[in-house]
């Protein structure tokens, strides 16, 4: 019948497709070659713009071609009259938009737009914000676009409140949006200036409360969505601590000064400058780490010349400056050592900074999380948040509860069992450090705690006796070398295979490593650097089975008086 439609057969279709593809490939290759040719010859003119646009229009991820365009535009900027160049820029913006429509997640395209807008004398930021809004409406989780929006908002000096309202609208549509939550965390601290006393990065109470309610709505609606939990964790977290010298320790016998910084640093010229004044006059010293490696470390030490210690003067003062922070410690006549340090209990090093009001906020957060946990007993995010809230409220009071929740959590999230063990070890160590400091002693007993890892060793600079027996440790890590005052270390009944951290400990006298997994005497090599070590217990280790072990150990550690195998 007249006018009926006939459809090509599959073979015809395939053939037509193939021919079309071949033709496309040919054009693509020719254009690419032509561009590179021109670039090599330094022929950077509009024809290159035209050629690159053909290819980038189809494949915006060809980064080299974007570079070509940048070269051309920079060249033309110097050659063209301003109005002609402005037209080129307008065309470039239009072209970029069409590329973004092809692929809204192309790094090259967004980067080129950033570059172009950054160079314009009078960029139309309002239009750019609109463009972002449009692309985020199509895909509210396009992080390329979020990135660009932050760039635009910053350049256009958009008030944080407006941007916050924008994130509101997108969270309302779909709260599973890391980018949007993250942007909030950047905007909120800028929202209203805080009183000077408060460290930067913290939120005023009313805002914090509002945000907590918002995020609670999210995790009650969908407790398995981790974006909300992550934001919640940020809300409860603390700002990065400010730089500080946590502890300064001087030892007369070892003629040594030891410093503990608030973060791992490398002391040295051009990196971190530290100045030492002894009795108010500068003393140039050589800084080193306890393990001798020049890597970022919390603890640095230096040898003091003998004349800074003469016992005639009633006292010697040691004054250390690091950037704009400082600490002083005075060594009185007749004393062997002296120190000055920040206490973990005073500074609440392991906790969020909380006013009384915030504690009540946290208390109610804890209540609602417990409520959610009743409904969703196996939700790992909820369990973990309960643990974190308890720690934030009072780590010692909630210690038992916390350990109980850890057990539930390990069952609910077996894939992260080891991570949870480590986290639990960390929290337990924090608690025991607090207890030790409250008791004002230098002895720390961590036996039978199921510890899998050692944390916060920088806080143990002054500890003389440490008991790590009957835990699940597999090594004595390098950080242990920070314990400069350690005299007795017990670590029986673990699964220790290496003892790298037992190195250069000037006062270590006794070391007990019975019932561990030490395979061969050679792993004990680091102990040779501990000058005072006189008693070493190695009973019931695999190396005891080796016939040659006692002999090898004597050769390896000739200064150790007694080695029990």
């Amino acid at each position, binding site marked *: *019948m007249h006018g009926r*439609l006939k459809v090509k057969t599959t073979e015809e279709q395939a053939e037509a497709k193939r021919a079309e593809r071949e033709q496309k490939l040919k054009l693509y290759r020719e254009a690419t070659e032509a561009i590179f040719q021109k670039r090599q010859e330094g022929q950077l003119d509009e024809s290159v713009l035209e050629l690159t646009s053909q290819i980038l229009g189809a494949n915006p991820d060809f980064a080299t071609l974007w570079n070509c365009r940048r070269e051309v535009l920079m060249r033309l900027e110097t050659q063209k009259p301003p109005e002609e160049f402005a037209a080129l820029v307008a065309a470039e913006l239009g072209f970029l938009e069409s590329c973004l429509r092809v692929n809204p997640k192309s790094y090259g395209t967004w980067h080129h737009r950033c570059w172009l807008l950054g160079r314009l004398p009078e960029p139309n930021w309002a239009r750019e914000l609109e463009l972002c809004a449009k692309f985020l409406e199509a895909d509210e989780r396009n992080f390329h676009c979020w990135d660009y929006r932050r760039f635009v908002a910053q350049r256009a000096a958009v008030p944080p409140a407006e941007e916050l309202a924008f994130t509101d609208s997108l969270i309302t549509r779909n709260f599973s949006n890391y980018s949007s939550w993250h942007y909030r965390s950047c905007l909120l601290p800028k929202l209203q200036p805080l009183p000077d006393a408060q460290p930067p990065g913290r939120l005023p109470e009313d805002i914090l409360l509002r945000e907590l309610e918002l995020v609670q*709505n999210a995790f*009650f609606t969908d407790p398995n969505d981790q974006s909300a939990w992550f934001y919640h964790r940020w809300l409860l977290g603390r700002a990065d601590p400010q730089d500080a010298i946590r502890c300064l320790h001087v030892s007369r016998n070892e003629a040594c000064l030891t410093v503990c910084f608030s973060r791992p640093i490398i002391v040295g010229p051009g990196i971190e400058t530290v100045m030492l004044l002894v009795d108010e006059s500068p003393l140039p010293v050589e800084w080193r780490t306890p393990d001798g490696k020049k890597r970022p470390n919390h603890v640095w030490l230096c040898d003091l010349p003998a004349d800074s210690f003469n016992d005639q003067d009633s006292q010697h003062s040691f004054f250390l400056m690091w950037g704009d922070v400082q600490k002083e410690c005075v060594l009185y006549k007749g004393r062997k050592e002296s120190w000055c340090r920040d206490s973990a209990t005073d500074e609440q090093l392991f906790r969020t900074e909380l006013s009384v009001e915030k504690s009540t906020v946290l208390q109610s957060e804890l209540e609602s999380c417990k409520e959610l946990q009743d*409904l969703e007993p196996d939700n790992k995010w909820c369990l973990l948040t309960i643990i974190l809230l308890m720690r934030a409220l009072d780590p010692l009071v909630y210690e038992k509860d916390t350990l109980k929740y850890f057990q539930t959590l390990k069952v609910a999230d077996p894939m992260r069992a080891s991570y949870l063990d480590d986290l639990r070890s960390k929290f337990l160590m924090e608690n025991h450090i607090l207890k030790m400091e409250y008791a004002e002693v230098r002895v720390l007993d961590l036996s039978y705690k199921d510890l899998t890892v050692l944390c916060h060793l920088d806080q143990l600079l002054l500890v003389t006796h440490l008991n790590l027996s009957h835990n699940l440790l597999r090594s004595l890590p390098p950080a242990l070398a920070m314990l400069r005052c350690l005299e007795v270390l017990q670590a029986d009944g673990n699964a220790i295979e290496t003892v790298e951290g037992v190195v250069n400990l000037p006062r270590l006298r006794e070391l007990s490593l019975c019932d561990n997994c030490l395979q061969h005497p050679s792993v004990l090599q680091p102990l040779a650097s501990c000058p005072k070590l006189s008693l070493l217990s190695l009973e019931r280790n695999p190396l005891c089975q080796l016939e040659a072990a006692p002999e090898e150990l004597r050769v390896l550690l000739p200064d150790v008086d007694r080695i029990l195998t």
Partner: protein
Amino acid sequence: MADKLPSEFDVVVIGTGLPESIIAAACSRSGQSVLHVDSRSYYGGNWASFSFSGLLSWIKEYQEENNGEEWTAWQELILETEEGVALRKKDQTIQHVEVICYASQDSDEHVEEVGAVQKNPGSVTSASTNDPPDSMVTACSDTSELTTPLSEPEAAREVPDVDVTLGNENHGGDTDCSQSPLEQEKAGNLPVGEDVVDAPKKNRITYSQIVKEGRRFNIDLTSKLLYSRGLLIDLLIKSNVSRYAEFKNVTRILGYQEGNVLQVPCSRADVFNSKKLTMVEKRMLMKFLTFCLDYEQQPDEYKAYEECTFSEYLKTQKLTPNLQHFVLHSIAMTSEESTSTLDGLRETQNFLRCLGRYGNTPFLFPLYGQGELPQCFCRMCAVFGGTYCLSHAVQCLVVDKESGKQISRAVLITDQSVLKADSDQQISILTVPPVEPGSEAVRVVELCSSTMTCMKGTYLVHLTCPSSKKTAREDLESVVQKLFTPYAEAELENEELKKPNLLWALYFNMRDSSDISRECYNDLPSNVYVCCGPDGFLGNKNAVKQAEALFRLILPNEEFCPPPPNPEDIVFDGDGLQPELSSPKPEDAKEITDQGEVEECLEK
């Protein structure tokens, strides 16, 4: 021109309702020659949408008395070897039509629609009941067991409303067809632009204003929505018919509780944003809805309650009464007394599966009204060569079974939404639970002006429920009074807390013929198939199912509405070399020589 059209067709489809139009499109798509006729001057039958004046004409037609049947001329055309099957001409599917105008009618009576082509679309045709039939089709030439036309003229054996599809045989008969453009009124239905008279909030909207603006919007006879994962959407996409229509997502699901209209949180975003629910309620609701999504996988959760009603089951689910109400009436949209647990779970699951495909509610509404959809399929049919004749009654006899089921409908024009929100462009569906046990829930669909179903500053509200009393008005007026205030009374009322004003109301009953199958008719020729009118459900599932089932009977070996070929793969076959088709080729068929021209003649 008309008499040069082909006189034989593979398939003749009578009536342009949704299932008929789908069948016509499917047959045409499969290469059948299709004649699609409708006695009315408009497309869609009871599925149609009208401009305001079109609706007034429709009302007038149905308020007039039936003046008996003309039965003469065409009988002479039946050959000795043929027999006629009579169809009743007068449509009795619509009853109890009542119109109440609340808006002020003080201005002159002669207001006409802006740019109206004719005041009454019916008047351009001969469809008015007193005219003699101007066309006839004799059908079923070799069916011998057919009864003589009107030999037993009981009401029970007549077919006033049935839309009949005739299958696979060539039918002789004189047809007086013209290739009508799809809709003569379409030109008036341009999107409302800036030039539209913007009814200011404080200004009273008058009846004459509505009449004047009447061509800018379309009012549906049948109020339905499309489930976004429903059969109709699937079909529209698969067949590519979707490109002929535009849709809007329903924006809100509303509930009615203790005299208040509330927004029902149903999507994840709704639950998150809801200020009405407590945290624990949020969790319980989400938990229950997540369970419903794949309830089949967790039979232990509901096995024990299979014998109970869904509402009893909900009570066991740790849901607060608030949430039970939302789930029962607004999400599952089921009955409190009679829906079983399994049916309720299935309905809830269906609702949830449709969520999020096109937005935060499960429903779509076609711009310009539901009546667009049959037309879209007609267009598809025409693109593949189908022939259209409107205003041509077909008179042949089939026997009607009276269906007891009636749908009660109300169409209202109001001046504001039942639940005000930031945006006045909301499309909402509200289920009003039954007032007393035994009565029926009323489904309310409120459309804003951007759906092109009402003028700016007004809302079009459809109420639908199965009929239980005598007339639609008796069924629905109590709900109307709960939600709205008649316009005149409004002046006395406090401006605050005021219900929306009712400007205009139409009530009618429409027959629900969904339970009528061809088995209900005696002596139906084997190649005659029967379609239903609109049913009382919200979705269009039954129409699509029926269309597909009938198509399979007519053309058992053909695919149902396959995707049309890629435009670049189409070879225009101007020579008409179509070996499988032996039907005589009309000499002058240039209106369907190529697709472009057909498109043009169908251009809206």
